[in-house]
């Protein structure tokens, strides 16, 4: 249970996803399950796709029609609670926020983690955006087998620098 161990239930996760048809285009998946005073997701989206509203304690809502999957909200969210997902054939393409060193490189094979912190599969890094705009929250583009669409959330961090 998320209140006890930080892991949302599969029902909670799936409720934040659009249909698989909609995911033919990249869309932001927002996993901000509890009301907190926060709204940079809303103010950072250039396409007005996210609404928190007048009371900044409301949970963000997304309009998938407006979302272009650009990923800007992903690195502006202080909760690192947003990812962008797209389905391409038998692969799912993810854009995730990443704040660890060293950054993975394009083409690198990485361990993909679930919300409960287990390695579930391998993925390939397809692009790394880590410029001034990202301001140290890199945007990692990943390609993973589509069957892990609802399970994959981040990549493993290696210790011992």
């Amino acid at each position: 249970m998320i209140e006890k161990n930080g892991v949302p239930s599969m029902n909670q996760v799936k409720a934040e996803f659009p249909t698989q048809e909609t995911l033919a285009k990249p869309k932001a998946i927002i996993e901000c399950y509890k009301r907190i005073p926060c709204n940079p997701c809303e103010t950072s989206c250039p396409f007005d796709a996210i609404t928190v509203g007048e009371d900044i304690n409301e949970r963000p809502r997304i309009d998938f029609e407006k979302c272009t999957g650009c990923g800007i909200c992903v690195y502006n969210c202080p909760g690192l609670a947003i990812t962008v997902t797209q389905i391409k054939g038998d692969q799912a393409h993810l854009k995730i926020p990443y704040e660890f060193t060293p950054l993975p490189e394009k083409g690198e094979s990485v361990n993909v983690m679930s919300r409960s912190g287990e390695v579930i599969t391998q993925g390939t890094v397809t692009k790394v955006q880590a410029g001034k705009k990202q301001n140290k929250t890199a945007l990692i583009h990943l390609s993973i087998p589509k069957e892990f669409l609802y399970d994959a959330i981040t990549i493993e961090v290696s210790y011992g620098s």
Partner: protein
Amino acid sequence: MQNKEAIVIGGGPAGLTAALELLKAGASVCLIDRNERLGGQLTKQTHMFFGSEKQYASHRGIDILEILTNSLGKYGNKLEILTETTVVGMYRDKVLSCVSGDKFFKLQGEKIIFATGASEKALPFENNDLPGVYAAGAVQTLMNEYGIKPGEKVLMVGSGNIGLIVSYQLMQAGVEVVALVEAADRIGGYLVHASKIKRLGVDILTNTSVKRAIGKDSVEAAEIWELDEQWQGIEGSERTLEVDTICVAVGLAPLTELLQQMGVNVKYVNELGGNVPILDEQYQTSVEGVYACGDLANIEEASSAMVEGRIVGINAARSLGRSVENADFRIKALRHELKDLRGGPPGDKVRKGLKKLGVAT
């Protein structure tokens, strides 16, 4: 003894914004902090902040500090900054005694603003005085200010935002967080923070606490155990974790001793972190011309500390006879910001605490 128009004690987010508003209104300000650098807690906060644009949300704490200190830079000799200076005493006529190195001196201020923040609470358990048992803020200072790892394997105690975010920052520094234990039956801080560390493999254990630290000259292991509903340890549930550091993040207590010394009325309000000064509408204490804001007034967030600092700055400037543009409108807007920040479930505790204190929210 030197006389000052306004003295701000504490250069954290609350003190910095209070100073800024006073300067904006044309007042001269003497800003005192015992540290080498201004910024208070902000100096070690490498993560992005929550809130809204008005409180620089989505900026990292260290970047917010830069924004605030850059704005201070505009006021030239109207602003006097005394760092590495500790205020050690205060007397009725608003006279402060200060220590800087081996120098001892007194200052008097027409208005005095206290923004001294809070200190970390300790947790009683066997061997909690062993080297390697550190307060979370200390771990953060060591890592993010001095670039030093506190150890290689850490047990975090406490699941408030501080415990959660310091766990994340430990991982960013290349330190393994073996587990995070929480005595309550649920996570105390924001769930987005909790999910952030859980998905990287940190075990979050609720209804669990640390029983004792093990080690001769420093921590070599930690024994944890499960707690029952009355927060009593359950015999037989003990587990030993191999760690070299136990990081304690069980809350903060306002640093009100100085205020009490000069006879400011305080009240014990558990929800606000302990003894807090009783404030009027203006954020003025029971002593005329002495104000308080930030974590000193109620343990909260940097976002609300900055808003309170601004309100205090404007109020103090006005009572100094300085004219503040659109003062009423701005105070109203700032109060609205506070209301927004405290409006949701995470603000329940503070709202309840402020009510006990008789403050309208």
